[in-house]
């Protein structure tokens, strides 16, 4: 069948600059480039190009430009180029449209409609380069009140504090499974989390034995497929996370194709080599909130009540009520993943149409837990579209205790958000199990890039805090008075619990 699809990208090669080194040929796992010895020229099959810019970045003479194909379809606001191409694709394959990363549709990004406050005159701003500025954050349930006994100088704590995660900066790495990303990417995340005093999350793919040494900085996920969940896995983690849902595909399970299930992945996930790893949409032992409570307590019991248990859900319409139930079911941490949250693979229609923006879900959940007087009983961690330190500051001021970053972390490792993770051909060595590709990502360099990112964001957070005259992150948490909306409707402002700028 003749394909009616047009190339998404065009590859322009400056033949004068090209030295025929064939870096592009070797770097492209999608086989876009090839060298013709007879003509001594490099050619491109543009229909295969995904726009990951690996070749452009590595071309030693800057001979390459990859640009969006400017070809216009007949103008139509309804039947856009994207819509038509999707239909051609499905007419040719009969399949579900697949994609990777987070929703790329232009839903409002509320972070960009919120501005921050700063001190002027009545309250001195604080210079974080010269004065202490505290970002340390503890995640976990906090008691309603403390009882302290003993005398001054010999105080004793009579209230038992349940297990907490200690973060030196309120940023963690989101759940990304071994399988969705390469071993080297996992190791980069693990080493960076350990070095920066924060945590990364295994996702649902189990934990490779070599990474057990980073267990103190690892949140081990228990998802519907229960891949790689065994006693040692639970034991080695700093915290456990029950994954109910994911922002990129709320209500949908997962599918790691058998070709990605290598020997190592097979051992880590505890499934036969080469078999598809199917995560059911729901946990088949959780059909109600009391079932969730049972799993939470089973995990706590299995780990001697030494680890906080997080429950992760996709941000959906009634997240507030669900979150309230989760807290009452014993969750120590509520992880909320918004509609812009990433994935290794999801049906495009699900990714782009199901769920709600994280900003609104966060505001609603924080409000609800406060109205019910149980906000202290769980920490809130938000994920799904945190792109910068400013987003982190806004999330914390809206009510989050910390954030998860997934896409931003992968971008730090080289990801160019081409959204083709599901192909397993990631030229950046991240979302692939091909050893030829994954060795491109050196875990030592990867960890350095991630730590640099965390350090940079932390410095920026300190600057913003200092500007507000605040020297501890807990004084920003839920402090919505330091936020103002710009260009938002009254209803949006009400849900976010902030005033409009100027008011």
């Amino acid at each position, binding site marked *: 069948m003749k394909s009616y699809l047009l190339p998404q990208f065009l590859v322009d090669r400056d033949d004068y600059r090209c030295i025929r080194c064939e870096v592009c040929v070797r770097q492209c796992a999608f086989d876009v480039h090839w060298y013709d010895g007879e003509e001594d020229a490099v050619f491109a099959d543009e229909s295969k190009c995904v726009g990951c810019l690996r070749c452009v970045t590595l071309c030693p003479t800057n001979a390459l430009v990859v640009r969006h194909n400017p070809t216009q379809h007949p103008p139509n606001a309804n039947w856009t180029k994207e819509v038509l191409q999707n239909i051609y694709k499905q007419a040719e394959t009969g399949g579900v449209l697949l994609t990777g990363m987070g929703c790329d549709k232009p839903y409002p990004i509320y972070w960009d409609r919120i501005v921050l406050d700063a*001190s002027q*005159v*009545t*309250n*001195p701003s*604080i210079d974080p380069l010269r*004065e*202490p500025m*505290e970002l*340390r954050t*503890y995640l976990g349930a*906090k*008691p309603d*009140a*403390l*009882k*302290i006994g003993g005398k*001054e100088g*010999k*105080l*004793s*704590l009579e*209230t038992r*504090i349940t297990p*907490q995660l200690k973060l030196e900066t309120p940023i963690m790495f989101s759940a990304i499974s071994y399988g969705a990303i390469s071993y080297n990417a996992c190791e980069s995340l693990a080493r960076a989390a350990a070095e920066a005093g924060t945590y990364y999350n295994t996702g649902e793919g189990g934990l490779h034995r070599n990474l057990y040494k980073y267990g103190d900085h690892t949140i081990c996920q228990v998802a519907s497929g229960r891949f790689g969940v065994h006693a040692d896995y639970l034991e080695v983690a700093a915290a456990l996370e029950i994954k109910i849902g994911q922002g990129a595909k709320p209500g949908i399970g997962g599918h790691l194709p058998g070709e990605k299930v290598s020997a190592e992945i097979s051992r880590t996930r505890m499934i036969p080599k080469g078999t598809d790893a199917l995560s059911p949409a729901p946990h088949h032992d959780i059909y109600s909130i009391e079932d969730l409570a049972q799993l939470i307590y089973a995990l706590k019991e299995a780990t001697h009540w030494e680890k906080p248990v997080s429950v992760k859900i996709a941000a959906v319409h009634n997240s507030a009520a669900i979150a309230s139930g989760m807290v009452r079911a014993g969750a120590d941490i509520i992880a909320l993943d918004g509609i812009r949250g990433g994935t290794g693979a999801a049906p495009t229609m699900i990714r782009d149409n199901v769920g709600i923006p994280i900003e609104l879900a966060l505001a609603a959940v924080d409000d609800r837990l*406060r109205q019910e*007087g149980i*906000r*202290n009983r769980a920490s809130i961690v938000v994920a799904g579209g945190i792109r910068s330190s400013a987003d982190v500051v806004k999330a914390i001021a809206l009510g989050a205790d910390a954030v998860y970053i997934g896409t931003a972390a992968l971008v730090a490792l080289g990801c160019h958000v081409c959204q083709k993770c599901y192909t397993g051909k990631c030229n950046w060595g991240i979302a692939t199990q091909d050893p030829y590709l994954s060795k491109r990502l050196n875990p030592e360099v990867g960890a350095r890039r991630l730590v640099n990112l965390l350090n940079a964001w932390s410095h920026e957070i300190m600057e913003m805090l200092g500007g*507000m*005259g*605040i*020297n*501890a992150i*807990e*004084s*920003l*948490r*839920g*402090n*919505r*008075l*330091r936020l103002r909306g710009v260009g938002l409707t009254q209803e949006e402002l009400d849900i976010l619990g902030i*005033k409009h700028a100027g*008011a």
Partner: protein
Amino acid sequence: MLREARFRDDKEFSGCSIFGMMNVRGERFNGEPVITAIANMKERSNGLGGGFAAYGIYPQYAELYCFHMMYDHQGAKEETEEFFRSRFEVEGAEVIPIRECEGVDDPPLLWRYFLRPRENLVCSEEDTDDFVVQAVMHVNVKIEGAFVFSSGKNMGVFKGVGFPEDIGRFFRLEEYEGYTWVAHGRFPTNTQGWWGGAHPFNILDWSVVHNGEISSYGINRRYLEMFGYICTLHTDTEVIAYGVDLLLRRHGLSIRDMARIFAAPLWTEIDRMPPREREVHTALRQTYGSLLLNGPFSVIISNRHQMIGLTDRIRLRPLVAGRNGDFMYISSEEAPIHLVDDTLRETWIPQGGEPIVAELRKAAEEPEEAGAQVITIPATDRA
């Protein structure tokens, strides 16, 4: 003017003067020296608010809750009095005596009531305090034009719009005798003149005068709302008063612990502490982080037994303490202490986050308090 219409901003911003004076033997003295002292810090206020809290002024009604009230109009008074009658035995109701005073204009109706909660409505003493707090919240939130200045026993708050020394004369404070006096002069930058907005703020026995701006106000308020405190005034001083009530009365923490919450030590300091102390401090910050008062402040928090001075953790606002025999002083500046007590030799400047606690050695009307120690913490003895 509607209360809501007065406060369009998130909270008030103000610079201020604060002064507190206590006789730790509970011997009473009149308001004159406190007026003199606060007047000496005139340039710290701008005539938009001054006030006093005095403890021990109503010994004849020591067992009754004394409500100092302001009303914008007669209707508010009638509605409030009807509410009081439904909840309390009203043992006394009178106009607060005032005199005409230049610089104090348009006073609201100022009344005081001596109230006993109806016995069939409350069970225990703790209940009684909660009952009174709820009554205060009801009046402040539900009755338009009425506001409770103070609601403690054997104490009262006198405050209004004007320079503090003028407010003191207006309320004839030289005619009252108390053993603890706390005063405040305001320099608000955004509050239109409203008498209820002046300091001190009070709930039950607790009064707070405050110099500063709490940058963490937004979360402090939201945290207190979880415990049923409704911040009607949009002032950061109000959250301090409610925070004190929550921590000391409801959660039973000590004053030192309260200071560790309001002006928490830095994590780097906590990390260097011995294990048990570290555990306590860590738990306090974990649990009560939302009550950390961030930003510049110095406060004097007082009740019938104590007067507590505290500055923020990095000491962005001034506070001086002084002691001379039975008299303890806490002040924004040192000069006024010497002005009212020329034999005083001992003054010191506390570190940020270090509380100064003056405590009654023997309270005549509180026999169970006899033997309580004066606790003062010299600047060198820092936790």
